[in-house]
């Protein structure tokens, strides 16, 4: 079920196991049959920890989605709400509880499981509504870091960036620190901590404080991680704004990957059976899980999209040849052997079929004129061309009312690549945007300015060219097929965040002090003492393991770049990646926009 979690350098199955154990323990506290009412947002992340079968073993008989009104009939002893600590959800729960039929027998007991943390504010809110006493168990389930893949952990906290950089609310940082403490409890104390940015500093401080205050956390596990690198998202605001050009990155940009699942337009996946000629074409989107458990996907996900076609075609030949083997199978033994391989071959075939279809869908988009134009402008900005004047393409897009998020991504990208826009240019963009999309977007524009994504060049100095040159963010001779540098993930642009990680490993940050000072927030190094018995004696040629924690989100292209570094033959470092949320430019900007529709409830 979760074999892919143990395939990496660090066996993350242990983390998943810990999560499952905690879940079982909670369920067993509520004796008897149960129904779970789900905050829909949580079903995805929970799905990565447990399947329905686990819940069923612990007498969960029904599951519903949380919505206002009366709870569905279900003859169970317990109703358990699995929710994030959000006030609007508390209102729905209140409604559910107040509408419960008190006359029913037997009575149903209510419980709340807060994920990832109990909230005094929410409990207060429930108390105000007079329902707090209705809940027998109110507990928390610390689902801080969820294992997504053998080398990837995410907190899936949508609003983390907004909370940290717009509202200066550090709650998600506290959760990050908690998650890191859990990780250390399972995988040993991480001896070295590096960081860059205000939030990174906070998290490191909290970890050190927690360790001091809970001496019980001193463990005797041999450390798996050598280094922790904490990075603020606002140290590198540029990378997520650019269009990701790896296979997985493009799937996410175009269709959005949620908790390792993607929903795709069904047409290309229609089962083509003979004689059934389009009788019932599926109308529901096709949902696929994407992770390294699928051999083919693991091979192609981090490649530049331009290099995916050749792999798929090679695979096709191999599989065809394998199936041809059946003609040569003469003896019973040979036939038996062929048959025994059949399931594996069929799985490979179905995997190939899926990815061929996905690649076709993506190609339709990447070959479109608009995709090309958009990318041209992005690449001009990132290489420092014409960043200081109003861009014609952006104006055109506004005139044609392209989606607002696309416009905002481009304008922010231009701003970041110019260390802020000239006041006149900024005003011009703002005016065009609110006249075309509505005045209320003043609010969104203000949020983007507060987060530093959009600003006027006040200091009069543009640092970006220096940063670009020193960190070699723009590479002219990029090789998409057989890359020799991380810049392949954006076909020329090397993600700043990953460059920082790369330079930290070799030759060290001392070499780039000047540039580090230009980027926001402090950079620092901390050491955590290990008991003498646990100090590592490295075998010759053994790689170091570094955990890179992106505070405020990370893109799939950045993950691909880090995986590329892990696989470099003389790299010397393997990376495990953790983040508050897996993001792309669109989901990120969206999280910063004012919610303009009234709440659904």
């Amino acid at each position, binding site marked *: 079920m979760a074999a892919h979690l143990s395939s990496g350098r660090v066996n993350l199955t242990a983390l998943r196991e810990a999560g499952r154990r905690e879940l079982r323990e909670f369920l067993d506290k509520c004796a008897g049959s149960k129904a779970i009412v789900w905050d829909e947002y949580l*079903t995805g992340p929970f*799905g990565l920890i447990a399947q*329905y079968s686990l819940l069923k073993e612990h007498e969960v008989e*029904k*599951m519903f*989605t949380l919505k206002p009104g009366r709870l*569905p*009939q279900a003859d169970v002893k317990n109703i358990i709400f699995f929710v994030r600590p959000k006030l609007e959800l508390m*209102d729905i729960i*209140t*409604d559910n509880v107040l509408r419960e*039929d008190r*006359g029913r027998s037997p009575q149903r*007991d209510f419980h709340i499981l807060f994920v990832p*943390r109990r909230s*005094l504010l929410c409990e*207060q809110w429930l108390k*105000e*509504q007079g329902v707090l*006493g209705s*809940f*027998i*168990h*109110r507990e928390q389930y610390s689902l801080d870091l969820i294992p997504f893949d053998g080398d990837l952990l995410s907190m899936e906290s949508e609003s983390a960036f907004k909370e940290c950089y717009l*509202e*200066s*609310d*550090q*709650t998600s940082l*506290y959760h990050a*620190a908690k998650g890191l403490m859990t990780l250390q409890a399972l995988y040993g104390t991480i001896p070295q901590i590096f960081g860059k940015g205000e939030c990174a500093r906070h998290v490191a401080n909290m970890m050190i404080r927690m360790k001091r205050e809970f001496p019980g956390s001193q463990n005797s596990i041999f450390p798996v991680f050598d280094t922790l690198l904490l990075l603020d998202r606002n140290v590198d605001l540029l990378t997520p704004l650019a269009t990701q050009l790896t296979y997985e990155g493009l799937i996410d940009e175009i269709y959005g990957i949620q908790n390792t699942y993607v929903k795709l337009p069904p047409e290309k996946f229609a*089962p083509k*059976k003979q004689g059934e000629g389009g009788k019932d074409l599926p109308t*529901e*989107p096709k*949902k696929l*899980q994407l992770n390294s458990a699928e051999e083919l996907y693991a091979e192609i996900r981090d490649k530049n999209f*331009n*290099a*995916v*076609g050749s792999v798929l075609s090679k695979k*096709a030949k191999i599989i*065809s040849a394998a199936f041809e083997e059946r003609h040569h199978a003469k003896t019973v033994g040979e036939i038996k052997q062929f048959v025994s391989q059949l399931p594996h*071959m*069929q799985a490979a*075939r179905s995997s190939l079929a899926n990815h*061929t279809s996905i690649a076709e869908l993506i*190609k339709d988009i990447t070959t479109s004129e608009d995709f090309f134009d958009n990318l*041209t402008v992005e*690449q001009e900005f990132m290489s420092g061309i014409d960043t200081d004047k109003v861009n014609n393409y952006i104006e055109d897009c506004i*005139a044609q009312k392209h989606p607002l998020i696309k416009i905002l991504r481009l304008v922010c990208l231009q701003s970041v690549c110019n260390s802020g826009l000239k006041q006149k240019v900024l005003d011009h963009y703002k*005016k065009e945007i609110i006249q075309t999309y*509505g*005045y*209320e977007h003043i*609010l969104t524009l203000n949020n983007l300015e507060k987060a530093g994504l959009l600003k006027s060049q006040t200091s009069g100095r543009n640092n970006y060219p220096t940063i670009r040159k020193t960190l070699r963010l723009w590479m002219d001779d990029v090789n998409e097929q057989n890359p020799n540098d991380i810049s392949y993930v954006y*076909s020329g642009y090397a993600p700043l965040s990953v460059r920082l990680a790369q330079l930290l490993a070799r030759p060290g940050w001392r070499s780039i002090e000047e540039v580090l000072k230009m980027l926001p927030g402090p950079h620092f190094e901390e050491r955590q003492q290990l008991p003498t018995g646990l100090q590592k004696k490295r075998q010759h040629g053994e790689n170091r393991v570094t955990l890179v924690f992106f505070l405020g989100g990370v893109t799939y292209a950045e993950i691909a770049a880090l995986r590329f570094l892990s696989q470099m033959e003389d790299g010397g470092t393997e990376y495990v990646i953790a983040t508050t949320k897996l993001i792309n430019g669109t989901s990120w900007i969206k999280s910063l926009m*004012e919610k303009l529709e*009234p709440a659904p*409830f």
Partner: protein
Amino acid sequence: MSRARADEEEYWHSSKFRAFTFDDEDDELSQLKESKRAVNSLRDIVDDDDDDLEKVSWSGDPVGSISWSIKETASSSTSSLESRDSSLQKGYSSYSAFPKQASSYSLSSLFKGRNKLPSFQSLSDALSDTGVKNYAPELRRPKAEYKDYSSDWSPKDTVRRMQRGKVCSLERFRSLQDKLVLLDEAVAGHDGNIITAVLIFLKRTLRKEILFQELEVRQVALCHLIHFLKETGEQKLLLDLLRFLDRTEEVALSQYREHLNIQDVEKRREFLKGCIGLPFSAEDTSHVQDHYTLLERQIIIEANDRHLETAGQSEIFRKYPRKASILNMPLVTTLFYSCFYHYTEAELSALQIPDKQYVLTALAARAKLRAWNDVDALFTTKNWLGYTKKKAPIGFHRVVEILQRNNAPVQVLQEYVRLVEDVETQLNLATKYKCHDVVIDTYRDLKDRIQLAAYRCKVERGSAEEEKIDSILNNTQIRWKN
């Protein structure tokens, strides 16, 4: 676009930038076809087992996953949802038979809940008398929890215990000094949950002015309080706080945001009018002013047009019924609407629109109505000698594209294609939109015999265009360059 497309292309290929393109002939992804073929040919062999291959429902959730199970278990139990009567009181007292965990934190009712659900009122009223006894579970507090109330925890210990999810009373912290130490401890712990809890306590037990003063020097706690007030919708206190802090621009924006919650347009207009005087940045002040002016105008237009439409006497409304009300639409949409329904009425000057944007919008609106004369007039300028000249602030290539999108006939289209300045762009557009005359004339002017001859097979056999090409090719006067 300032940089003509042709330049752009050349720039793209010659410069160091690598385009993300797929060359048609030899591209890697044409190999997709190959793998597709292979996959398809394999279907015959394995199709029979196809269905057993993956245990995945069509929606893709593996059978047994959580989201799949929600659908499955829910569908089997939704049947009798509303079928019960609501003898709410009966048997309700049995509820108290279960030992209940107390409200662990003795933060008594602190902030007034918004009653967002008027429908609750009746239900909670009905429950209120039984509610008292059932919702007062303190009697059953386990022994262990008593301890927390009797012990004299220091602020530091209190925060630590709260972090571990233990019960703590904050009421003991009576002096301002104690309360502030408690707050500082909470902040030092970084747990937003605890910080908020302490803030709720302080907010209830301190005078507003003192709370504000103390928070001014405690930025982290301040941010949490602001966030908390936003979350709980305590707008008035929030504005008081921001005013106290002199964060006037934020006050203005926060107040302006409120207009989104006002559904009634008249009330919304009044509200926006009130926003105009707020201390926005200079730039936003003018935006808010414009927002108000726009809505004011929209209300007039809407009333007028709804009347016209129902009266059924205006031809344009009969022919093109309105799809939606114009209220609360963006400026450019309003402009389009006006150019569509009220073009002749000189009604538009009140909306200050940059030239470019006006031309784009008016062009799209008039083209949609196929009012080609209006389109023509849009680009005609007269100089003082009375000569007319064609000018387009947006570039004629854009004009052509917009016309084409609105299905303009070739005759109209080619008139504007001819006005495109850059020859290569002109040729591309002409070829793309089949303006044969323009293509033929251009090749003639370029003296490009080969291209012209090649184009001959793109026009219809025996057509006037073919004749034209033939006559040009046979013209001995032309000195072809090839």
